[in-house]
Each structure stands twice: as C-alpha cells, then as structure tokens.
C-alpha cells in the first residue's frame, strides 16, 4: 500500500516537473506574493537566507524547495506555513520560533484538509507544534528534524500532530523536546517508520482511536513517560526500540484498551515498566526482548486473550506483575533468565512450568509500601518458599514450556 502511495506521489511530482515553470525567491522578495502569482504545478526555489516571513498560506499545488535551508522565522508570534492545497511539496526549509497561543495550535507547518502533500527534509526548530496535520489523506512527512526545548506540558505542543487523517507515512524523522513526539487522534491506516522520538517531556508516541496503523523500526527513548497508546485496534508494532524510559511514572509502552494487535520483535531495554497493559485483548506479543527493566510487564487482570510467545526476558528486576489472581492470557515458550528448572528430555524446553510472578511482586502490587523491603534477605526467602509451595501468586499465570536457551532474535 505504501509503495503504491510513494510511487503515485513520485509520478505526480514527475508530471508536475514536466511542464511547470520554476521561480526563484530571495530573502528580499515576499514569498506569499510569489506563491499567489504562481500557477499550479510551478516549482518555487527558495535561496538561502533569513526570511522574516510567517503565516504563509499555500493555496495552490506547488513544489516549494529550499536551497541550503533558508530560514523562516515566526518570531515567536505566528505560524509559518499553512498548506491548504492538495499535492504540495515542501522540502529543505528551516522553520523556527512559532508563536504560542491557547486559542490556535501554532505549528511550523500546518496541513489543513489536504491530500498527497509531502513535507520532507525540513528542520523545525523550537516550534510549538512541528508538523500539524488536520483532516488530511495520503500525506508524507519524512526525514525532518523536529526539535524544541519545551519545559512544561501545558505550554507546549507535539512534534508531529495528526488529527482525523488517513494513510499517512511518517518516516525517518527525528523529534525531541516536545510534549509528545508523535501524537495521533483518529489517524487510520498509516505507517510510522524509522523515526526517533527522544527527550520529549511527556510521551514519545501517543495515539488514540487510530486503527490499523503500523509502527516499524522506530526508537523511543528517554521520554518523560515513555509511550502511551489507547482505545485502538489493529496496531502492528515491529522492530521498534523502547529504551531508557526511566522514571517513577514511565513506561516502555502503556497499552490501554488496545485490541487485535501485534507486538513483534521489539526491544524493551531499561524502562521502569517494559509493557503496561490494561483492558487490552487479543494482542500477540512475540519475539520481543525485555532486558534490564524494572518490571518487564505489568498485566492488569482486565486483559484477556493475549498471547506472549517466544520472548526473551533477562535482567529484569521483576518479570511480570499483575493485580489479580485471574489470568486469561497465555504464556508459552518464552526464555526467562530466572528459570531454574531442568530439561531432562533435551528438547530445549523446561520440564516444569515457570511462574513469572514472584511473591514479592504480588505483595508490592497489593501494598506498594512494601517496596521498602526491596532486595532484603527476607523477600528472597519468601520467593524461594513460594517457588516450592505456591500460595499467593496466581497459579494460572505460568509458562508451561519455558525455553532453556535464549531465542536468537
């Protein structure tokens, strides 16, 4: 689907280039006037320099290319580019210092009700919102650098913000220092590939009601609260890295009311909680690596029908925590570094089940204050005793066929 999307975009660009005029723009000229005079299909080449112009509205299908990153400055008052025509291409610009308002979401580049727009290779520095897509379809946002230094959640916007969109391709962008790196609300059938979202004050990725989206090869690291996604079905997450989202309210990924989704071959490394799951159903979690997290997974009893298969768990303080005794999820053939069973028939899977919920994690789940005894001798004795005679831990939560050796992922 996305290949076709790229191809069609490519051909449309070729077609435009074939019989279109090229106009040059200098810092002395007003870009808005040039844009208004141009005919649909024209190419506007913007020479390097400092353009103190903002609130530029693109009303026609134009190709706007910056050479040597011309700088457009919103002077902390205005928005910079507002695109309201289909098929616009925006490339190689540096856009900075948008205004901040509580009435309007001020963005570096705003797309309103458009189709087939491409925003590539731009630098958005200190914008409230970086790229803002509103009710748009088949748009591409790729290879942009979106950087801000937000301090407060309420004062800031998101790196890539999309509302009510379809078939977007967000790829190879780097966003940092915003409220959320990527924020989606009602964005469907989109692909988010190869982005790096780091150092945002709230979430690296945050979406709601965004069905059938695919996330591949992204990195989410050092975000204030990690990644949180909600009320969505049909999510595919493949080969993403969730790294060092470390703080007392941080999650590698928080899944709330997510269903019929796949979490496949991702890496969760040094997060306070690798995966937090609440009210989620039928999620297939396979081939992931959970290492050095506080809790690899916290699965609330409100989750059902999830399958955790062939994952590697190593070096986590707690493997799995849960808040109830009922467990409607399946664990099988995972590798757990804390497993100390045996494999007499040498088929690579242990002969006795592994119970990933330690008794101490049950206690701290019920009574958080008990965390004060973390790493004390007593808690280790309790874990050992529970191993021999399980009484408090949910006995249905077990891996019947734990792997003896780590999966090669």
């Amino acid at each position, binding site marked *: 689907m996305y290949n076709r999307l790229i191809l069609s975009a490519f051909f449309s660009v070729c077609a435009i280039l074939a019989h279109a005029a090229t106009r040059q723009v200098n810092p002395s000229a007003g870009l808005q006037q040039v844009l208004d005079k141009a005919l649909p299909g024209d190419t506007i080449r913007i020479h390097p320099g400092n353009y103190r112009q903002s609130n530029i509205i693109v009303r026609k299908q134009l190709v706007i290319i910056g050479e040597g990153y011309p700088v457009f400055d919103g002077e902390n008052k205005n928005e910079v580019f507002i695109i309201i025509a289909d098929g616009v291409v925006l490339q190689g610009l540096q856009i900075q210092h948008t205004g901040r308002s509580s009435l309007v979401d001020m963005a570096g580049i705003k797309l309103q009700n458009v189709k087939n727009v491409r925003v590539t290779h731009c630098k958005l520095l200190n914008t409230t919102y970086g790229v803002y897509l509103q009710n748009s379809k088949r748009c591409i946002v790729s290879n942009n650098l979106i950087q801000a230094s937000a301090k407060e959640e309420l004062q800031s916007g998101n790196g890539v913000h999309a509302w009510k969109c379809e078939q977007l391709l967000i790829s190879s962008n780097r966003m940092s220092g915003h409220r959320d790196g990527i924020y989606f609300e009602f964005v469907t059938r989109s692909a988010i590939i190869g982005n790096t979202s780091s150092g945002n004050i709230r979430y690296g990725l945050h979406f709601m009601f965004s069905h059938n989206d695919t996330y591949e090869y992204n990195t989410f690291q050092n975000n204030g609260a990690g990644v949180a996604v909600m009320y969505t079905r049909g999510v595919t997450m493949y080969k993403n890295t969730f790294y060092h989202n*470390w*703080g*007392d*309210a941080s999650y590698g990924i928080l899944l709330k009311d997510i269903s019929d989704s796949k979490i496949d071959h991702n890496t969760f490394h*040094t997060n*306070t909680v690798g995966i937090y799951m609440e009210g989620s159903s039928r999620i297939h979690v396979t081939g992931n690596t959970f290492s*050095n997290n*506080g809790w690899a997974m916290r699965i609330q009893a409100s989750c059902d029908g999830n399958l955790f298969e062939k994952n590697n768990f190593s*070096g986590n*303080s707690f493997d799995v925590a849960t808040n109830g005794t009922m467990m409607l999820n399946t664990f099988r053939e995972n590798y757990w570094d804390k497993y100390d069973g045996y494999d007499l028939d040498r088929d690579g899977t242990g002969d006795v089940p592994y119970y990933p919920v330690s008794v101490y994690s049950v*206690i*701290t789940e*019920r*009574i*958080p*204050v*008990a*965390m*004060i*005894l*973390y*790493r*004390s*001798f*007593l*808690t*280790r*004795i309790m874990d050992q005793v529970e191993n021999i005679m399980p009484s408090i831990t949910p006995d249905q939560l077990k891996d019947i066929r734990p792997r003896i050796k780590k999966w090669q992922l």
Partner: protein
Amino acid sequence: MNGANTPQMKTIIKYVLVDLIRNRIILVYTAILAVLAVSVLGLDDNPAKGLLSLLNITLLFVPIITILFSTIYFFNAIEFTELLLSQPIKRQQVILSEYLALVSALSGAYIVGIGIPLLFLVSGTESLVLVATGTLLTLVFSSLALLVFVKSKDKTKGIGIAIIIALFFTVLFDGLLIAFIYSFSDYPIDKAVVGMIALNPIDLGRVLMLLQLDVAVLMGYSGALFKKFLGSPLGNVFSVTCMLLWVFVPLIAALRIFRNKDL
C-alpha cells in the same frame, strides 16, 4: 574520656591489633570477602548487578560475622582485660581501646576485601557508598557485640544473644515490618514505615545503597514519600545519621555499664 592516658590506649590498641592479625581469622575474612567480590563482579558484565550482589553479601554476612567474632573475642580476651585493669588505667579506656582495635581490624578487612576489588573493577560513588555501608555495619555490630559482652554473665549466653541479635536484624525485623505493613495497609503508613526502617541498621544500609542505584526508581514508583524523602539528599543524611546513632548509642551504653561491671 580521652586525653590523659592516650599513650596507654595506643599501646593497648597496638597489642590487640597484633593479636588479631596473628589470630589469622581476620586475614581469612579479608580473603573470603576479596574472593567473593572478585567473582561476583567478574561474573556479571553489568556493574550495577554486581554491586547489588555484593550488597546482598554485605547485608547478610557482615553483621553476623562481625557480631559473633567480636563477642567471642571480647570474652576470650577477658583475662587480658583483667590484667590491664590491674594497671593504673581507666576502665573505660581499656575496653574502648579493645573496641577500637577490633573495629579497625574488622573494617580494615572489609575495606581491603571489598574496597580494593571495587576500586579496580567498578569505581564510582556507588562503590564508595557500598564500602561506607559495610564499614558502618561493622561499626554498628561491633558496638552491639560490646554491649552484649558487658551485659551478659558468661560466654555461652553472650554468644547466644549475639546470634539472636544478628538473626533479628537480618530476618526477623523485616518479617515483623512486613506483618505491620500487611495489617495496616489501609492506613497511610508511609511515614511510619520510613521511621521503622531507622530501627534496623541493616535496612538503613540497604536503603542507603539502593538510593545510589537506578533501582531506586522502583521504590519511587510505589510511593511518593519514598521518592520525595529517600530520593533527596535528606534521605541519605537521615540513613547515615541513624546508622551513626546505632554505633554510638550501644557503645556509650556499654562503656557506662562496663564502668561498674564486676568481671
């Protein structure tokens, strides 16, 4: 207390130290700690993990070995002490010198055994805090041993009490604490729990060390108070102060009792 007869104290300390080193147990203790440290740190490529394992070893072995060894030593040295007491030296100075010699031998053993491998393999503030924790624990349990010695009449009873004290602080106290937490979990007991931690030097040491490591976040996750209080420098100051109290209160009590003790 100090002052007048310090040359005599120095002489006593010197003799006791020589005796302790000739005894070889201190050397064996040092060697065991060093072997444990090197193997634990060498096994794991994650230094934080290695430190945690060393912390466990410290919390488990240092108190029990220190209190047992010290109690036994005080009882065995009773004839030597009697001999010294017949000289014109203050009683308190005799026993204080013996205590100081013992403490320097034991903490020296810990610092060499754990500190030197750490210095080469994982140097940093965390390692320093671990060594400090271990040393403080050595001081605390030597003081307790001295108190046991002055309070009990015969050796067997003294050793029994020492074992009970060590077990109480390593296991039993935490058991009681968890029972307390369990029974009062419906109430806001955060503050009370932090207060109760102060009653156990081993818990203080553990918390002090955990606060230096990343895992402290796990504690913050489960209670705002832990994060606010223990996570701040104030938390460190609190732990160290309480541990120092644990050193000096039993020591001073022991010295006072010893003044009137009939040997």
